[in-house]
């Protein structure tokens, strides 16, 4: 297995604000990674550093084994249209489609044309006049059709309706299956993408709080709901990830339970419910679901 990204001790400060704090991780070749976290957690800063759009304060970045900074042989294999991507004034969609192949050697013009149809993108319209969803689909199309060995998608669904989002997920899986590459999906709509992800990296306040295979995370926690006294008694000796109570009812999240533990809990009248990846992350980042969804 080869390593596509290797980051050690990466720190980025803006004045006295630390956007990324001593971050280290690796990304293996050919996988779909989720880069998750609230807005302001440092996701975009991290991606900008990985693509050499920004400069690290400290630490080391290796992409395909080399530093990406001013390194054309690395950057030629990287695609990163960010959510807030600027376009030249008066640029129309067709100008993007025309110029992209000059920069991405694996560009598939037929695939791009198909995607334009799928997303019903008006090619003669100025970028400035596009709706938020149409703007997102421009980024999605460039990201998919460029087929770069390392592709970033930054909040790719902003403004897209449910149909268009599903379309993106479908095209991503299909094309990824035929043309494996390393995909990094930065998003806060975790439930929608959780089945697509092989590996999850969660940033919170500039630090990595989760860096695990998605399958490991799935079912790594359980929610217990029941009479407060019964629940508290049961979790007494366990690590609690999250705790909430209304009146005499308590809802507590703990690490996953073995079969006999589950039976024991059920015998005590406690209801067990699985928690989704999104709920798990919300709990680990100490926010409420509502705050999390509104954060982007």
């Amino acid at each position, binding site marked *: *297995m*080869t*390593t*596509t990204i*290797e980051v050690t001790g990466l720190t980025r400060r803006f004045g006295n604000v630390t956007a990324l704090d001593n971050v280290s991780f*690796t990304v293996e*070749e050919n996988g779909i990674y989720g880069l998750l976290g609230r807005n302001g957690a440092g996701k*975009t800063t991290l991606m*900008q550093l990985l*693509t*050499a*759009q*920004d*400069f690290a304060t400290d630490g080391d970045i*290796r992409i*395909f*084994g080399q530093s990406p900074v*001013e*390194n*054309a*042989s690395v*950057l*030629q*294999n*990287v*695609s*990163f*249209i*960010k959510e*807030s*991507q*600027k*376009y*030249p*004034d*008066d*640029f*129309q969609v067709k*100008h993007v489609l*025309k*110029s*992209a192949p*000059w*920069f*991405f*050697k*694996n560009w598939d013009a037929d695939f791009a044309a198909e995607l334009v149809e799928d997303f019903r993108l008006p090619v003669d319209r100025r970028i400035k006049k596009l709706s938020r969803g149409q703007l997102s689909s421009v980024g999605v199309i*460039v990201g998919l059709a460029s087929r*770069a*060995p390392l592709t970033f998608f930054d909040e790719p669904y902003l403004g897209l309706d449910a149909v268009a989002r599903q379309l993106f997920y479908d095209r991503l899986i299909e094309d990824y299956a035929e043309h494996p*590459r390393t995909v990094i999906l930065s998003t806060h709509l975790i439930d929608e993408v959780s089945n697509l992800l092989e590996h999850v990296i969660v940033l919170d306040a500039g630090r990595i709080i989760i860096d695990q295979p998605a399958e490991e995370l799935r079912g790594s926690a359980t929610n217990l709901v029941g009479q407060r006294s019964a629940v508290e008694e049961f979790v007494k000796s366990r690590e609690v990830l999250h705790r909430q109570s209304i009146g005499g009812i308590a809802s507590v999240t703990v690490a996953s339970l073995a079969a006999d533990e589950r039976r024991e809990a059920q015998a005590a009248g406690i209801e067990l419910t699985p928690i989704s990846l999104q709920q798990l992350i919300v709990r680990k980042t100490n926010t409420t679901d509502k705050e999390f969804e509104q954060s982007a």
Partner: protein
Amino acid sequence: MTTTTIRPMNVAKGGEFQRIWSVVRLHVVNRMALFGVPLMILGFIFAVNFVIWWTLKSSLSTSDFADASEGMQYSGASTFIFVYMMVVAVQAINLTFPFAQGYSVTRRDFYLGSVLTFVMLSAAWALLISVLGEIEQATGGWYVGGSMFNAIYFGDGGFLQRLYITFLLFSFFFFVGAATAAVYVKWRTNGMLVFFGALVLVLLAAVLWITFGAHWMAVGAWFVEMGVVGVVTWTLVPTIISGIVGFFILRRATPRN
């Protein structure tokens, strides 16, 4: 940990020049904004002027018309293109640069491609204006005694001199515009304030020095001595400085949201 090998089928290889040339193509991909609009404006100004020339020619006496003709040389109706191209340079750095970053272009490749674009555009526009000036002269001012491309600022020494002057002027506007925009991209509003503040101070200091040192005569004499060609040749100094400074600023610039 294994060191990385990129599978050959996935690796994109491109020569250095090919990468720089892609940036040139990116700069000029929007033909309408780059050529169409300024040419249309130019055509419109020409049409309006033509009507005025024709009206003047048919209504004024020969001697009055000769006076008017001389005055036209100062109108500089075609000089808007220089300002337009300066705006093109500003947007190339302010907007196309962050966009090219999205295409994973290195700052160096982007800058070299931009320099090449600016030089080629300067040459193209200089050639067009000089040729039109030549036609203007050959046709006695488009047959109505008009003057639009023989503005006094472009010199009066024939085709090659005009080409030389307009080329350097275009380059000046491109590179100064680009360097100013680079200051903005790197340091944003504060950078602009400091930059223009410093510029005003330098110019003010120069004016004060000339005024209190009673050097105005000398300055005037210098301009006369240099002639249009000499003065324009001196613009190479700020042009080249802008070109070099712009590179080093952009090397460290990060596009912000």
